[in-house]
């Protein structure tokens, strides 16, 4: 598998775990490792299968604020999405000679229904018609590939975090604007396995200030906030048949699938463990909102 672009800025730092997070680690088996800090809250990882250099540079120009992981072939693309927290995929329909690209896209869309796939290339009417049936999220006809603004818009549309918006909507009326902004900031970083010190740093405060503000804004402690978000995002990823519990657990920083299952059980409780269904995800979001003490002034305003 080809590697990721090294466009993510900032030096690598070793994360310092907060006391709250360390206690959670022992309860949930969370594996704490150092990760690179983020420079942009909206950064998303895009998987791309674009054999032509021209297309690669066009995509590169349009996705400067995101990071890109390059796949060599269709199989590689599947593996990449399975193993990495990919937000969207961009592919050339004719990436592999002799293979029906539309059929590959159909299979991809079945395996990863939550991961939008954008298709680029020479697309005649029939190809466009079939792509719609196959589940492509959008298309870029070859004439538009050099239209940077247009491609940027399509990429932004594909990488919108609908789950983060859903959480934000549920929290409105419970938590104030500043608190919800913090949740959004944390949600944007969860796919990369963010830890409390990095979250604090990204928001320009110390860990202790972050903890104090969470209390003040009616949110769970930063450690618990991240735990809830890992559960919610993990359950969302697990709605995709192409992802395994092991791969999702790994992406979220857990030592094993079993550790992630335990974390879900400890946090949500009940049987059976609500994996791989929308009810489980819905229950997790509801439980998270219920676990937020809330900001009294916001509740009154509601």
């Amino acid at each position: 598998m080809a590697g990721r672009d090294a466009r993510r800025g900032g030096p690598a730092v070793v994360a310092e775990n907060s006391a709250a997070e360390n206690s959670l680690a022992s309860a949930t088996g969370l594996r704490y490792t150092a990760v690179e800090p983020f420079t942009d809250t909206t950064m998303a990882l895009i998987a791309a299968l674009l054999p032509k250099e021209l297309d690669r540079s066009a995509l590169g120009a349009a996705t400067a604020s995101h990071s890109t992981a390059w796949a060599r072939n269709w199989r590689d693309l599947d593996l990449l999405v399975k193993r990495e927290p990919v937000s969207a995929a961009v592919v050339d329909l004719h990436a592999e000679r002799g293979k029906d690209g539309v059929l590959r896209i159909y299979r991809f869309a079945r395996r990863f229904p939550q991961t939008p796939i954008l298709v680029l290339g020479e697309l005649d009417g029939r190809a466009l018609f079939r792509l719609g049936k196959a589940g492509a999220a959008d298309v870029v006809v070859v004439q538009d590939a050099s239209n940077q603004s247009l491609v940027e818009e399509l990429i932004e549309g594909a990488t919108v975090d609908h789950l983060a918006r859903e959480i934000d909507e549920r929290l409105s009326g419970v938590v104030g604007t500043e608190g919800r902004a913090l949740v959004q900031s944390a949600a944007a970083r969860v796919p990369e396995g963010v830890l409390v010190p990095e979250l604090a740093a990204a928001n320009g405060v110390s860990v202790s200030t972050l903890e104090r503000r969470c209390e003040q804004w009616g949110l769970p402690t930063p450690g618990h906030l991240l735990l809830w978000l890992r559960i919610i995002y993990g359950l969302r990823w697990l709605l995709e048949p192409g992802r395994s519990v092991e791969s999702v657990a790994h992406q979220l920083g857990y030592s094993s699938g079993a550790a992630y299952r335990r974390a879900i059980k400890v946090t949500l409780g009940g049987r059976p463990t609500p994996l791989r269904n929308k009810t489980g995800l819905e229950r997790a979001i509801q439980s998270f909102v219920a676990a937020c003490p809330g900001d009294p002034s916001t509740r009154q305003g509601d």
Partner: protein
Amino acid sequence: MARYDRIARLDCPQRSHAFPAWLALRDLAGRERDPELNRRTRLRFLVLRPVHRLLAHGFGSVGKRSMDQQLACVRAELARLAHADRERRALARCLDTMASLSYEELPADLIAAGAMIEAAGHTYGAEEYYLTALEVSRRLGLASARLMAARSLGRVYGARREWTAARERLEAAVADAEAQGDPDTLEETLRELVMVLIEAGDLEAADGAVAMIGQGDEPAADGNVDGVRAAALCAIALASGQVERALESGWRAIERLRPGTPSHSRVLLDLATGFRRHGLREAAEACYLMVTRAHPDLGLTSEARIQHALVAAEAGDRPAFQLRREELASAQREMDRHRAAAMHIALSRGAMLVGDLDGARAHLHQASEMAREEGLEDTAADVETLAPTLEERPKAEIPANNPQPSDAVRSIAARIESLSQDLVPSG
């Protein structure tokens, strides 16, 4: 490449589940290898893409340079169509309007392009254009364009026999027309709604809609209002089995409506149905000929041609039926899939009536294939009904007619035949 196309077997997605403007490509279903349709549907799709871009990001938010670049690419592709091509001109107008930033004109341009696509029998492409026009007019607060788009949608759903969707759109259009206080548009929209309600089998609601036609006008002040109301009454009476009353109302409508208009042609089709029920073949044929020769609307013309062939079969006139069947077969490419499927069902019935059982089976098979490919429930039900008849009762009975038409009916039939000679050159 796979040896067989697995994608072709998949159901078409709903509009909300496909990428923007995809619906404009859906007319390709079952005709993916047709190069001309391939090219046209692609162009229709490409023209709509910048409109959807404006809808998604806001009319003032898309960069002018990027938009101009996108429009230039589409324009370059559009130039490959013949200069005299009417659809090309309609599509180019949409692009010009976007380039000049005069967005308030965009819904009307989209509706005009949609009407051209609809006239070619491509109902999904037309639907996408009308829906996009509706979205643009809503976004820009253009009430009159919104009404036009809703009416166009009602018409296109009606053509596909999607009565519930047609009714919803037309009811919304009626409410809009009332709010706008435009009596002419309200009458026309009500008439369209009445037709849909009749087809949907809700005669009570249709009666209610007819009662609304012309409300507030002076009695008989507007002959057209009276004509519209008479046309609606004709359709209702026909649907409820009161043939003589239908013919009387229909003739009254014919006298008041302008010849060559869709309303006039629809009444002629209803009259023809009434005449057939009385066994008055010549009068029915005269109605069909007037529609096929006087009206450019492909939907109405196709319907008239199909029924014209069937009426020959009902009379046991095998040579005339065969001739008309061949003419229809050559015109099939111009029809949308729904109408083509309906045509095969009708021709299967006709072939059965003249004793051509192989022909009947062939038509039924084609209808069945289209029903499967397109998910046409009405056609599938017709196939299921017709198939056992074909196998068990090879000599199907000619539908029973009323053998004793009244003097009034005979008089209307004679006047129609005379009108046909006035309007249509013989031959």
